[in-house]
């Protein structure tokens, strides 16, 4: 009798705890569904063509769109990519192919630490590095801030995918008598191209939605693009401003902007997922 009740208890504790863990996983997925679902439904209901064709109107006026901010986000992403991809890729090549173990692990460590620095701190740093010397908020400083966030992601993913290229490919290339740098750029990097591109896209998806580092670098600009040394608007910045606005028309535009941003970011993430799955097969 006694023994049976212990079995009974153990069995039910087992079921209870396993059930709870299933519920926990369900909660995690429900959070995604709640946020994503609400944003998509709200966003699509306020979505119209003005959003991508019109410039912002002054607060209080109905209408207007986020044309300049969407363009600004694309400029900032482009700028950050131009700065971050060469650094990240070359650092990745160093880590996988050229670094001595000790130096490579120090660089790797620095990259991981840099990836963990809060984005607002990166913003303050970019302010000190670029905005203060130039005496002006600028698109360039925003690009620098985003690039600092991108670099460690690009470097680490590039390293990992370059390492997956078998050494026999390197040996075969060298055996043909070509130089090492041509072996790397002509054989190793193309062999790992999917992984490298995946990492770059991951980094782009990450910075596309970043707001905190842009607050006092890109700053926002209602008049559209005025060159790289002037302040520039960005989609996430505008969503933030409009979300806190007292005007419900701007709140609605914030939702519509959020819809666009989420499509952009999740679109890239899903594409990345699809690419890396194909690589494995």
């Amino acid at each position: 009798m006694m023994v049976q009740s212990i079995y009974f208890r153990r069995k039910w504790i087992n079921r209870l705890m396993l059930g709870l863990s299933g519920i926990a996983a369900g909660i995690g997925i429900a959070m995604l569904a709640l946020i994503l679902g609400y944003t998509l439904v709200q966003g699509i209901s306020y979505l119209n063509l003005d959003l991508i064709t019109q410039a912002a109107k002054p607060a209080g006026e109905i209408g207007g769109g986020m044309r300049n901010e969407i363009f600004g986000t694309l400029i900032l992403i482009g700028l950050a990519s131009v700065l971050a991809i060469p650094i990240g890729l070359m650092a990745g090549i160093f880590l996988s192919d050229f670094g001595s173990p000790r130096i490579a692990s120090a660089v790797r460590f620095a990259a991981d630490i840099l990836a963990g620095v809060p984005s607002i701190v990166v913003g303050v740093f970019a302010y000190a590095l670029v905005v203060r010397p130039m005496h002006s908020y600028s698109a360039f400083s925003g690009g620098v801030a985003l690039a600092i966030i991108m670099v460690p992601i690009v470097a680490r993913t590039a390293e990992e995918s370059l390492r997956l290229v078998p050494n026999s490919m390197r040996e075969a290339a060298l055996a043909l008598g070509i130089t090492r740098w041509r072996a790397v750029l002509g054989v190793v990097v193309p062999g790992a191209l999917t992984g490298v591109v995946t990492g770059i896209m991951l980094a782009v998806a990450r910075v596309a939605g970043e707001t905190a580092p842009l607050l006092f670098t890109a700053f926002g600009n209602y008049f559209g693009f005025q060159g790289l040394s002037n302040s520039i608007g960005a989609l996430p910045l505008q969503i933030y401003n409009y979300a806190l606005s007292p005007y419900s028309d701007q709140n609605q535009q914030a939702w519509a902007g959020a819809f666009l941003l989420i499509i952009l970011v999740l679109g890239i993430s899903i594409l990345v997922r699809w690419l890396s799955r194909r690589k494995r097969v």
Partner: protein
Amino acid sequence: MPAFFTFMERSAKSAQETDEAGNKIMPTKVIGRKFLGHRRYSDRIFSSLTVFFAFVIVAILLGMIVALNFDALPAIRKFGIEFIVGTVWNAVTEQFGALPAIYGTLLSSAIGLLIAIPISLGAAIFLVELAPNWIRGPGSFLIEMLAAIPSVIIGLWGLFVLVPFVRNPIEGWLGDNLGFIPLFQGPPFGLGFLAAGIILAIMVVPIITAVSRDVMRAVPNSQREAMLALGATRWEMIRRAVLPYCRSGLVGAVILGLGRALGETMAVTMVIGNKYALTPSLFSPGATIASKIAGEFGEAAGDVFVASLVELALVLFAVTLLINVIARLLVWRMTSVKAAQE
């Protein structure tokens, strides 16, 4: 594994310099040099370029440390340790103390972790130990997708959906039923520490889940099989064999989540209410280090004011740096054990 070319260079060098018995062989070396001369030159340029760019990463990190310290200097000089324990933030009298912001950061992160830890560990256990294969992949994917949502969008959702829900029913109910605890006293604003904590929980769940899933996966199956062979139920196996085995990795996962929570800016700024308050009430609006910087840095005027905000950033940077170092070491140790076994 050493980097390929480094490895090759070393073995080539040693092959050139000595034969099997250890005698130096000079001629090969000379011939080798001559033959490869022009090639080595371009190779040297390329490899120094990779070294240069790799050190750009290190330089950025060091530059950050130097620049933040330098820019914070006026505030460090003026306030010293008073900055950390001071409770007043007044731009007019130029008095700046960070304690309420530090308190707000720690409190909101603590709430976030308290909610996130059981959910993430449960989800990780489900994904590693229970879920059939066809759920495992999509399940992980969906939870990781949560991490990809930009924080400004989570803030937007928090502001318009979560905050009203937190005000009533959550804070209403807590105030009515647990109002005797100081934590749950005060008028229900909605905006405040509690809302910020819940938002942070949502944002760290995917990180803690993903990392603890990886460390749980690193537990060798022999451990599980041994426990099951002793007649343990599945839960007893998880509890007695899996979790203790990867405990340090799980701690690392939680600390990694903490690092993210402490530095999270936009979503928290949007729902915390931005009031400089030092109060035990979770319902009260508050501020975090990150929200303070985000709210005031753009319009700060005067050396000391700006320097104080930079010093806040420096504090945040130092704390997250420390936390990330600890977490990386814990997680690395755990996952590299598995890598060494394979």
